[in-house]
């Protein structure tokens, strides 16, 4: 697969697909860029020997960018590797993913982030951008060498202790201040640790009935409020990971209104599933932050439509079966997401009319690329721009089969569910990583 990197692929002429779901257009991809659009595409000399892709009925968007992925390598190669995660990403329409640092060893040094970056480059299916840990070993005690990671070959701009909250307010302040030197951003996993000791699921009516320790919404909201104030105070940039409650929406909306430089993400599962899923005690529905209530789900969808929430990020979290097929409170939290994210967004946002395809491009490609500091992702579908895009069949319906997913793990919460929308092809700088809904060379 790595042999194809660099070699200029054959030009591709996509006929009759609709950029942003608007007007059918021909697109010519050549030399890694969008060489021509519209009537010029078919008449361009480079179209003569181009591979023709019939795009009738398909939507074209810039390649998707996931700001929150767990690739598990190094350390848990039994759950996922950079290669298998890259495959899942490409099949899900992604052209870039940000890999969270909760690996073993932790991605808290230039050495580890460069290793992950290099592995991603070798696989070559998506651009893999490592996220650096904020603190050494993600222990929340002292800052990791953030500048070393920023100036490494991996050019890290996003820092997070994801999985754990940078709960010490002084350390959080220092981190926010420190990353200003290289235009970094702190992606906070907002979870007040004392309020969530032993927490298993959303604290509410269902947790009371099931007898499980509750994870109260306030434990997220209080941290977001504090961090927004800290961000104002030091003039830095904050990104809120997997925002999950209606109250958090209010906090972020208020902060944005007064000018705080805060961005926020929501996961597909928080847009679709509720805490009622815990009723069968199947740990596939255990996730952190937990699934919330139907009214939270409604508020999250509206906030994504309104722009209070900036992006959709998968929090793709593969887990080996022995870490999931166990008692609920012993099970690891997390769900697969890369291959289902777009479909869930279509189901929860596009179909109800909350987002159009321009909106999908914004929340799944353009805004995450901007937040993560990527220059060549999330670009407009225009002549001269990188031919990094995804071709979607919006009418297709498919049933999620855990065994058919590319991830090494099987912990999808959507097993057996019928979802709309299928990725037909993914192009990374002019080269197809996915074609006819299958991996190229895979």
């Amino acid at each position, binding site marked *: 697969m790595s042999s194809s990197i660099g070699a200029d692929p054959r030009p591709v002429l996509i006929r009759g697909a609709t950029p942003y779901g608007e007007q059918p257009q021909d697109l010519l991809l050549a030399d890694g860029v969008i060489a021509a659009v519209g009537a010029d595409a078919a008449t361009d000399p480079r179209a003569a020997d181009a591979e023709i892709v019939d795009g009738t009925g398909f939507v074209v968007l810039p390649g998707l960018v996931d700001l929150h992925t767990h690739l598990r390598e190094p350390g848990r190669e039994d759950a996922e590797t950079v290669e298998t995660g890259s495959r899942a990403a490409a099949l899900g329409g992604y052209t870039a993913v940000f890999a969270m640092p909760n690996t073993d060893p932790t991605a808290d040094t230039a050495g580890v982030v460069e290793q992950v970056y290099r592995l991603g480059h070798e696989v070559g299916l998506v651009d893999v951008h490592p996220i650096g840990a904020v603190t050494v070993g993600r222990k929340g005690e002292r800052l990791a060498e953030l500048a070393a990671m920023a100036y490494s070959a991996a050019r890290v701009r996003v820092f997070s202790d994801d999985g754990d909250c940078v709960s010490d307010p002084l350390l959080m302040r220092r981190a926010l201040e420190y990353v200003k030197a290289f235009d970094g951003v702190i992606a906070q996993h907002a979870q007040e640790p004392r309020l969530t000791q032993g927490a298993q699921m959303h604290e509410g*009516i269902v*947790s009371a*009935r099931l007898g*499980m320790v509750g994870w109260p919404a306030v434990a997220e909201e209080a941290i977001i409020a504090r961090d927004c104030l800290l961000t104002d105070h030091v003039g830095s940039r904050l990104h809120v990971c997997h925002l999950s409650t209606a109250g958090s929406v209010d906090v972020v909306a208020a902060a944005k209104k007064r000018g705080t430089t805060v961005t926020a993400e929501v996961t597909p599962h928080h847009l679709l599933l509720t805490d009622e899923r815990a*009723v*069968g*005690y199947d740990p596939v529905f255990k996730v952190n932050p937990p699934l919330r209530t139907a009214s939270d789900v409604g508020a999250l969808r509206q906030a994504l439509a309104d722009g209070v929430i900036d992006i959709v990020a998968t929090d793709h979290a593969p887990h080996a079966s022995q870490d999931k*097929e166990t*008692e*609920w409170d012993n099970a690891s939290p997390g769900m697969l997401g890369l291959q289902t994210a777009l479909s869930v967004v279509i189901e929860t946002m596009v179909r109800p009319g909350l987002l159009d395809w321009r909106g999908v491009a914004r929340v799944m490609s353009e805004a995450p690329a901007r937040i993560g500091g990527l220059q060549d992702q999330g670009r407009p579908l225009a002549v001269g721009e990188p031919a990094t895009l995804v071709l979607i069949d919006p009418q297709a319906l498919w049933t999620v089969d855990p065994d058919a997913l590319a991830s090494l793990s099987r912990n999808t919460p959507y097993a057996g569910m019928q979802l709309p929308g299928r990725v037909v092809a993914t192009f990374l700088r002019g080269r197809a990583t996915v074609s006819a809904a299958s991996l190229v060379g895979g």
Partner: protein
Amino acid sequence: MTLAMQPRERAVPGSGPATAGSARTAAPQTPAVPEVRMPRHLLSAADLDRATAEHILSTAQRIEQAMAGREVRKLPTLRGRTVVNLFFEDSTRTRISFELAAKRLSADVINFSAKGSSVSKGESLKDTAWTLQAMGADAVVCRHSSSGAPQQLSAWVDGHVINAGDGTHEHPTQALLDAYTLRRHLGSLDGRRIVVVGDVLHSRVARSNVLLLSTLGAEVTLVAPPTLLPVGVTNWPAVVSYDLDSALVGADAVMMLRVQRERMSGAFFPTEREYSRSYGLDSRRRDLIAEHGVVLHPGPMNRGMEITPQVADGAGSVIVEQVANGVTVRMAVLYLLLSGESDSAAGTAADSVADSAGGLA
């Protein structure tokens, strides 16, 4: 036998909106006689509708009558069947109660304790379930420190699973024995006011009792400091109060829950003394309940903490009787779950109890 088997479907995760508790299919029934629908597993008191719960209690009553005055206190009903007591958490009292119940029904009983077994070496719940499955357990009595573990287990074994207490979730046979005890003293529970006092947040006994007692028509009042009530308690079929004195006035029964001393470290209440002063049952408070009222405690008691020795051992205390009734009620549950199968052995077993009980219809 008038037992109609309606194996209850479990809500399948991922199959659309959760429908737990509403998955029972409507069955033809005559209006006069509500149909008894014994679930396949006893995981929650919510698995029992009123007719089924009353059927279990009246079966227990008939078993008690059948056993009374017998020289050999043993029924041949479950001869050849295997009951596994799978205890991942120490509980000598509950295990002995189930063991005695199964032995009095002539079942073969295996005690599988997590301590010192492969479980403590990291064997998963699923592997343990498959082991039991391979050994052909007809019933698995499961105690576990994780809420929901018996329900997970029920998906992996063919035998009937009985929840013998899971984490802070439920303990349905405790609720059945409490209801049995209450009915012996109060008759029908319709409109009876039962006050449950203490650590509701962490109590599986409270959860099961709220569900079962309200199913049986009782009015349940929960009394606890606000810190020991779950946030979602407002949705329960119970009245909530912070004031024990006023809740006790005229009550038909008061059930004191065990309060673990380690709760103090979680800042649930400041001191034992303050807890005891506000929520402990002493003689003065005991006198507030109705004259015919009774005092229950699931045990083990913290004497001097949630209940004074005078009240625990005094008039109207049915705490010792609860223990005896526990065996009887668990016999009824084992019998009804295991004899519901339509094979000939079960038919014979049913007949044998009917004979022993002198006309168990």
